Every structure is written in C-alpha cells, then in structure tokens.
C-alpha cells in the first residue's frame, strides 16, 4: 500500500533513529511511503502559541500538497499529526475557512501508530515475528497530541488508547497497564523550563517502575527525547539511578522481525538499551 508521508523537521534531526526505523520496517509490511512534496514545518507549539494565522497556514500548505498527491497521509510525529488535523478541520469548516482555500478533503490523516496497528497489519506482523520479545516488560507511552483534543483528532479512545499494547502483544512482549500513558511529559518546554520537565518526567519514571516496567515504548519523538535525553540529568537531580530505555514502537517491530539494522538505530539513544536486551536474550 502506498501512502503519503509527512516526516516533519525533527525526523531529519534529533529523531533520525525514528526515521531510520520507519524506513526499515515499512517495506516489511508492504507499506510504501512517499514524502509530501516540498513539505514545510508545521509551526509546532511555537506557532499555535503566539501566531494563530501562521499555525494554520503552515500545515494547510502541507495538507493541500498531500491532497494533490491523492493518497492518505501518515505522520510519525504527534504534533505534526495534530496540526494537520487542526488544519483539516479549519479547511473543512462549512462556514468557510480563514485561509480562503478550496480543499476537497478526500484523503485521511493518520498517525503512524494507528496506521500500522490496523488489524490487517497486525495479522501480517503476527506471521512475520521471527524473534518474539518474550519477557520484555514495557509500558506504552502515547503522550498527548495524537489523541487530544478528540474534537480535532477524531479519536474515540483518547483517555485509554490500547493499540500499542495490542502491538506489543503481537510482538511477544509484555505490555503493562498503567495510568500515565497519555499524561504530559511537557516536551514543548524542554529547553525553556527544564525544571518543569524534570518534575513531569521523573513522575513518569516512578510510575513506570511502580507498574513493573523495564522500558518505555513511544510513538512520538518528542516523548522519546524527553524521556531519553534527560534520564542522566534527572537521575542526578533526584539522587536515583534510573535505567529505563525508551524504544520507538517501530524499533521493536524491527527487533521482533529480525531487521538487520536494529542495533544501528538503538545506538543513537542516550540510554543504551543493549544491556536490557542482552539480559532478556533478545540481541
């Protein structure tokens, strides 16, 4: 299946590991990704915080370009997905859109996790699992913006999404229940108010450990960065020695399907997942 793809800026920068794992596993599922032509930044938190007009115009251009390509569009970044959906709602407003654009709206916007956990793909995955992730105890961390607000994202399970857990089961891992799967990690403030991030993220570490987790699984590169890059700093600040590797769900798909380049992707993390995977006999 061929779909349009909106990688977003950070997949070309801090989240190159996410980008590489997506490029690695999608062919195994017969998913062909074609980048939206000449895509631009969605404006992210900054635009919708201080410049509403820009916050619509930027994603609207991407959506118009995707529409021209005529295929559904998938976004791996939660915020990019969210802004595309906000632009879609604005462009489809029956009272006319503020940008004066004519948008037929024939395509669907997906976040990557939802797209790859459709029933058909889960079945293909179940058949292709070469090395089940037996014994890997993980909490799914969805973050905020793929789900909220549902009036924009059109999600129905926004308080308690389950599809990452279903995926982990298919891959043979042990998904754990916890109450913080959609709680905020504060990523938008990670540079301007690192003290706030420390508080929010440390709470997530503690709750994950209390649930019995050995690692996080995420579908958002901002969550990944916030949980992974700060772990050393937060450990120091709270006098703890947290060790909770933070996997992208796509990396775990690659690992379970025996993709040869998984170690390259994982080597880009700051919290080295290899000791955990070695302990579990998974590498």
């Amino acid at each position: 299946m061929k779909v349009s793809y909106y990688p977003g800026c950070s997949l070309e920068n801090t989240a190159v590991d996410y980008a590489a794992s997506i490029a690695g596993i999608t062919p195994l599922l017969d998913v062909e990704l074609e980048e939206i032509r000449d895509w631009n930044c969605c404006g992210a938190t900054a635009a919708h915080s201080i410049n509403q007009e820009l916050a619509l115009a930027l994603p609207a251009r991407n959506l118009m370009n995707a529409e021209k390509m005529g295929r559904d569009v998938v976004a791996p970044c939660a915020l990019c997905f969210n802004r595309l959906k906000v632009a879609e709602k604005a462009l489809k407003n029956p009272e006319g859109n503020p940008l004066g654009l004519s948008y037929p709206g024939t395509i669907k916007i997906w976040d990557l996790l939802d797209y790859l956990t459709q029933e058909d793909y889960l079945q293909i995955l179940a058949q292709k699992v070469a090395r089940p992730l037996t014994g890997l105890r993980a909490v799914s961390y969805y973050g905020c913006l793929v789900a909220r607000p549902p009036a924009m994202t059109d999600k129905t399970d926004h308080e308690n999404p389950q599809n990452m857990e279903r995926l982990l089961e298919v891959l043979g891992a042990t998904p754990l229940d916890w109450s913080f799967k959609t709680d905020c990690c504060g990523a938008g403030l990670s540079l301007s108010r690192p003290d706030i991030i420390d508080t929010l993220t440390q709470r997530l570490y503690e709750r994950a450990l209390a649930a019995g987790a050995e690692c996080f699984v995420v579908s958002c590169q901002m969550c990944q960065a916030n949980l992974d890059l700060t772990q050393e700093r937060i450990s120091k600040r709270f006098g703890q020695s947290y060790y909770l590797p933070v996997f992208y769900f796509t990396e775990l798909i690659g690992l379970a399907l025996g993709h040869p380049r998984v170690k390259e992707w994982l080597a880009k993390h700051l919290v080295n997942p290899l000791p955990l995977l070695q302990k579990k006999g998974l590498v």
Partner: protein
Amino acid sequence: MKKEDTPPMPEPRDKPLFPAFTLAARLSQDHLSPDACYQCRKCSCGCPLTFAMDLLPHQVIQLALLGQEEKVLASNTIWVCSSCETCTTRCPNGIDIAGVMDWFKEQAVTQKKAVPQPEVAAFHRFFLESIRAGQGRVAEAQLLRRFTFFKMRRKLDVRELRENMKLGWQLMKRGRMRLLGSPAPGGQREIQEILKLIKS
C-alpha cells in the same frame, strides 16, 4: 421523570451575552467563548502543570469572564501551559481552555506586554524565526545555539551550560544534530509568502 416531562433545552441566544468590546466577546469572536463555564474545575483537576502555575486554569476562564485581561496577561500560567489539551478535552461545556491560553499568549506578544516567563516566550519566537532561517523547515542546531546564548546573557549557569554542551556533543556524535540544518524544500515562493506572517 418521564420523557415528556424533560424541560426543553433553552433556545440558542441570538444576541451575544456580553457587549462586543469585552474580553469574553473578543474571545468569542475567535471561537473561544468562555461563556458556558460553570466553574466545575475539571480543567484544573486534570492539569499536569498546576504545580508551576500562579493561576489555575479555571481561574483563567473566570478572569476572562470578568474582563480581567491584565491579570491573565501578567500570569505565569499562560506560558507554562504545555498545550497538552487535557483541559480542552475534558471540559463538559466544550470550552477550548488550551486555546484560550494560546489566545492570551498571542495577545501578550502583540500588545508587547512584559512577559513573566521570558525564556518560554523567547523560545517560541526563536523557533518561528528558525523556520524562516531554514526557509520552511526548522534549523534545529541554529535554534539551540541562539537559545543557549539568550539564556547565558540572562543568567550564566555554568553547570547547566556544561550539561547542555555535553548533551549537544552526545547528539552530534550520534548524528542527531545537523549543524547546517535541513536542505530548503522546494516551493519557496509559496513558503516565503506564508513566512511573511512571522512578525519581527
């Protein structure tokens, strides 16, 4: 109660509740009407950032209804809100509370108010300017550099600086930081037209 005993829903108002110049009416014009708030505090109960706020989210809405624009504009709350959208999602009256927070931030910027959280405001501004510098895509490394200098000029925190430089090096070593940013996308004429919306 039998079904026919249910009182009918009130007719929608044909006139706005507040005169046009009031804060609530200005918010309503931007589809952010706070009129329906009955102060149930569900927004504040679900908000993960209250520990860093001086006004709670329901108080921001209450002050908006009372026309207390200056009080809200002077608060930390609108800037430390992380836009996680929990409040907007859960409001029983459909008020877009996170949207109201954004609206006030934009007001503070356009009215050139003194912002109590200069780091947050500067980061947003630098981010938008880095989209312009990257000709449509964020120049991440440039953004980080600029923000680091901004922070150093305000207050030199040697420990934090050392930590950040170490982190930057770790990212660079792993190929997670492109010093020169992404190549500019095509469609520059269209993109430049949109980027004109970035003031300053």
